[in-house]
């Protein structure tokens, strides 16, 4: 996020045909480097899974390159036929972010489905566990067992497990 911000500023400073004031240049480079440090810290604390950390480190490095060599983007833009270098940067940034968001939607959907399956599994295991406890309790202290009608039904449910 911060890296993208830094890159954006870099492009804003690029408007005058690649002539960037030294102060602005330093500012942009510092912000970009800070964002790299931020990502590396996240990775080291295991807040990010490696696939994402790799992704964001790559992004940060690209941004840093663009920030340190402002002439690069201008040259690329001219060769592609875009006369306003910041536009090149914005198009690439929007396209990239779009892909990322779509990917996240996909991944969230998959994660949610897995969580649902886990929740169902938990409920089934919990019920099985309670049936088991009820059986054990019935052997030792009958007072702990549920009503007899339910007990019968449970016995039936557990006992025969073939489709018949």
């Amino acid at each position, binding site marked *: 996020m911060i890296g993208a911000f830094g890159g954006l500023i870099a492009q804003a400073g690029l408007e005058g045909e690649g002539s960037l004031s030294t102060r602005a240049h330093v500012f942009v480079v510092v912000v970009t480097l800070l964002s790299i440090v931020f990502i590396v810290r996240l990775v080291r604390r295991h807040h990010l899974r490696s696939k994402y950390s790799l992704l964001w480190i790559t992004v940060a490095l690209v941004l840093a390159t663009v920030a340190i060599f402002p002439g690069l983007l201008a040259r690329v833009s001219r060769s592609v036929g875009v006369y306003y270098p910041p536009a090149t940067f914005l198009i690439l940034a929007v396209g990239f972010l779009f892909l990322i968001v779509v990917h996240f939607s996909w991944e969230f959907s998959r994660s949610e*489905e897995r969580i*649902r399956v886990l*929740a*169902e599994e*938990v*409920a*089934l295991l*919990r*019920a099985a566990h309670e*049936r088991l406890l*009820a*059986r*054990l309790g*019935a*052997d030792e202290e*009958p007072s702990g*067992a*549920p*009503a*007899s*009608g*339910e*007990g*019968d*039904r*449970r*016995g*039936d*449910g*557990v*006992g*025969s*497990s*073939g*489709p*018949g």
Partner: protein
Amino acid sequence: MGGVAPPRPRRCPIRVLVIMPAYNEATTLPAVLGSVHRAVPDCDVLVVDDGSTDGTAEVARAHGAEVLQLPFNLGIGGALRAGFRYAVEQGYDAGVQLDADGQHDPALIPVLLDALEDADFVVGSRFAQQSSYEVGRARRGAMHVLRFAMRLLSGRTFTDTSSGFRAFGRPVLEYFARSYPSEYMESVEALLAANYEGFRIAEVPVRMYQRAGGRPTTVRLGLIYHYARVLLTLLTRASRRRATSRAAQQRAPRSAQPAAVPPPAKVSTVEEAR
């Protein structure tokens, strides 16, 4: 006492599980469980507590039902799939889905089960006959759209696509235990999926009460959004089917068309039974 119960003769030829998804239904549950027990004393009852906060699970247990307690709210699709998985794991031959809020008349469960003899999947329809079930105008219009879409995609007419009062044979239980949809208004998609899968689907008219407690699942404001979602889900399902239909035709010779035949004869007997 459950464990020491000696093996005893089976009272019913097939083992049936009544599956009741319940979300905060502690107030209506005792009455419903009571009438289920009166209507079908041989059936086991499973209440799937979908993350309730009002002690639904305890109430259900106190009234002799088996309980699956989901750790958080999954919506009706998730609750049902958990129920289907339980039914399959415990070796039940058939399942009946019944709302816990008292909308459905448990006395009609045997009617659904009878219809299951000629079908794999029985839907209790509120609209198969003229019925007293009142639906708001907006909702009625939306239901017409849904029914039209279903006719387009499935090639046959279902009078009630979103009924929550249904019966399932063992093969359908197994299919749904694997793949019951979890999206909003999952019953519509489930109907389409079962139809594509070649199961024999029958409709049986049921009367339905206005809900005894709780609130309707949708407010009118969200109706368009929800129905758009349902239509999208159906289209997705249909497109997926087209992609796999060739393989499905090869392995499943059961065609969907004969499935449309059984209902008429069945419906008349149902009316007599009432």
